[in-house]
């Protein structure tokens, strides 16, 4: 038997989407509904994705108004959150759950820390682009680092998945 668990706070989502009007607000609301429904179905497909999405939801509940962190941080961006959930749902099963944080502009940040000198951070932008940076400690003890911006259609692009592969996850 497959049980379903709804860990989304649905009213919160609709309140978020209901703050704006017009086509864009409707699109965001529709996307959030799809994400919520889809999450109920696939909740047991990948445990690490589930862990990350639950962490994201907990953070979203806290970051539901501006200055939620007492440091002037913007509330969570519904568009960024929606895309982050999409990405996490499509995350390969073998990937560990990322740590979740919010940038000061409200964008969701996904962070993998695979031990000393092995990090990948992906900021999910409202434009649908992913800003990322990584570091890997090489065999000579040097730190290789790089950064970039990648387009996404709701899955992690190879520029990012290649880095996770290097972690040996």
């Amino acid at each position: 038997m497959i049980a379903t668990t709804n860990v989304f706070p649905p009213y919160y989502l609709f309140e978020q989407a209901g703050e704006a009007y017009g086509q864009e607000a409707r699109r965001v609301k529709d996307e959030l509904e799809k994400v919520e429904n889809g999450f109920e179905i696939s909740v047991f497909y990948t445990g690490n994705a589930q862990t990350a999405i639950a962490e994201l939801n907990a953070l979203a509940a806290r970051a539901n108004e501006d200055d939620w962190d007492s440091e002037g941080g913007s509330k969570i961006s519904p568009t960024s959150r929606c895309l982050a959930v999409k990405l996490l749902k499509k995350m390969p099963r073998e990937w560990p759950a990322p740590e979740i944080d919010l940038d000061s502009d409200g964008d969701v940040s996904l962070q993998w820390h695979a031990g000393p000198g092995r990090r990948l951070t992906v900021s999910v932008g409202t434009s649908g682009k992913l800003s990322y940076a990584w570091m890997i400690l090489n065999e000579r003890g040097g730190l290789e680092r790089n950064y970039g911006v990648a387009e996404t259609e709701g899955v992690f692009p190879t520029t990012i998945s290649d880095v996770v592969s290097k972690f040996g996850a």
Partner: protein
Amino acid sequence: MLFRNSERSAPNEILPTTPIAPDEPIARFVLKEDRIRWLSDSPIGRIREKQFEPDKRNELSVFRVVNLEELSITDLGQKAVVSEKQPNLIGWGQFDASLVAQAFPGLHLDPTPDLDWPTHPRHANIKGWPNDADLDDRKSKQILIKQFFSEKAQLILTTHGKQIEAQKKLRRQ
């Protein structure tokens, strides 16, 4: 004014005009529990990248802690950064000044007093953060820098921070 007169007359006084040596220790104070990733398999956590995010002026506020023992650094943090909104000093991330330039080209420490910290002799800002017009480009470079500081900074907990760590360990058992 957030600091008291006794700070000015402390031994080993640092002046804003005192040049910053490459091996001079720099501290970034931590006031929030969730800025530390408390690890279950390690005696101490690590500072999350978010703690090294620049402020709205695109600067990161730090303190020069050369010649100060841990208790004096705690005292400095209590006087200089603790506020009503954020009343608890958890600890700080400490790193050598030379790491700032290594983090990204153009990044540098500026001890010049500014409007927020007009007279505190040990305050400095990390300036020169990327300022690309394209937000996504700017952000990816910022992430690179935050990652670097988070990786390199040594977390030092105050007594209060150690109590939090002990409580978290108890909860995990």
